[in-house]
């Protein structure tokens, strides 16, 4: 039992890490990775939604009729997204403003619905929570790594949390401004996917 929990948890961290291995949830990946801080905030919010919606869906999996399951999943996910939205508005207001419409858009993030459909609808609650947590942490790591590349190259700083940079490039560094604009997001993610393919494609 413990072994299978560990297996479901760790597959989200490397073997099936979204969005590199499972190409899902691209919109938040591209949009919020202007800085590491935004990426981590978005990742944590998504993890919260993933864990709780997986838990609830897996508890209700024998009650939900299969014909209307997608609608039921969406309502459950939307409920948790609303909770996250209100919590962030109350406790991390600045981050809430920075992430803007991407917080309500977690509802239509394919990763969350994808895990509900592919995993939580068929497995026990404990395994589903492990799966959601693993996927969520994997997603957070992916956002943070893409955010690191974009923030260092595009802005010359690195900010983990709280708004004060922990690392700054020297005065001679000229930031590549396009890295924090849209083209940099696409090209950065494309090159990262390429790197992931180079390192250990099975």
């Amino acid at each position, binding site marked *: 039992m413990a072994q299978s929990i560990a297996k479901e948890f760790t597959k989200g961290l490397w073997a099936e890490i979204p969005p590199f291995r499972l*190409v*899902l*949830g*691209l*919109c938040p990946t*591209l*949009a919020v990775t202007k800085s590491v801080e935004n990426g981590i905030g978005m990742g944590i919010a998504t993890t919260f939604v993933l864990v709780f919606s997986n838990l609830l869906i897996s508890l209700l999996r024998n009650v939900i009729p299969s014909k209307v399951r*997608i*609608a039921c999943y*969406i*309502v459950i996910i*939307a*409920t948790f*997204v*609303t909770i996250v*939205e*209100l919590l962030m508005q109350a406790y991390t207001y600045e981050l809430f403003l920075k992430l*803007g*419409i991407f917080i*309500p*858009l977690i*509802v*239509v*993030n*394919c990763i969350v*619905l994808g895990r509900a459909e592919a995993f939580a609808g068929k497995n026990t609650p404990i395994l589903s929570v492990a799966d959601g947590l693993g996927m969520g942490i994997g997603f957070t790591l992916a956002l943070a790594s893409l955010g690191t590349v974009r923030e260092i190259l595009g802005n010359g700083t690195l900010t983990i949390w709280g708004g004060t940079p922990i690392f700054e490039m020297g005065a001679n560094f000229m930031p590549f401004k*396009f890295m924090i*604009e*849209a*083209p*940099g*997001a*696409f*090209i950065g*993610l*494309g*090159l990262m*996917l*390429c*790197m992931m*393919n*180079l390192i250990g*494609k099975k």
Partner: protein
Amino acid sequence: MGDLFVLAISCIFINNILLAQYLGNCPFLGTSKKMETAVGMGMAVIFVLVMAGSLTWIVNEYLLKALDVVYLQTVSFILVIASLVQFVEMFLKKSIPALYAGLGIFLPLITTNCAVMGVCLINIKEEYTFIEALVTSFAYAAGFALALILFAGIRERILLARVPKPLQDTSIGLITAGMIAMTFMSFKGMV
């Protein structure tokens, strides 16, 4: 009238939903391998987004604001969009079979297209009037279709090129999208 035109142009080119606002990227990469599917998806998005944009505006103004339950926005919008897509699908199947055959398989995908939900939320956030919301919905959808069709055209040519193995498929797709985004950035000074 002139303002509406400027608004429409800025939504199609400058704030292009795919290339500048980062919304709707999953269908952008998923349905752009063939020109036919790209055109189908583009048309389906235009069709649904205009309806969803106006409907969610009405729901927000006359239901959520009137009853003072704006915190239910996320839940109610996704329900409106999901049921609208279902309804449009049934309606088209029954009355316009030719259009249904063209759009059919793309309609269910639109429920989880974040461009639709995103535009509805932008309309509310920017406090547009009903007419403005209608114009932006159409213009964003047209911009989506434009970028998708352009991208599909390029991707069909990439299939003929020899791409290094690790870069294949999604990876080269994203880099190409980055190049198109760069050209769209040059529209910035237009309005």
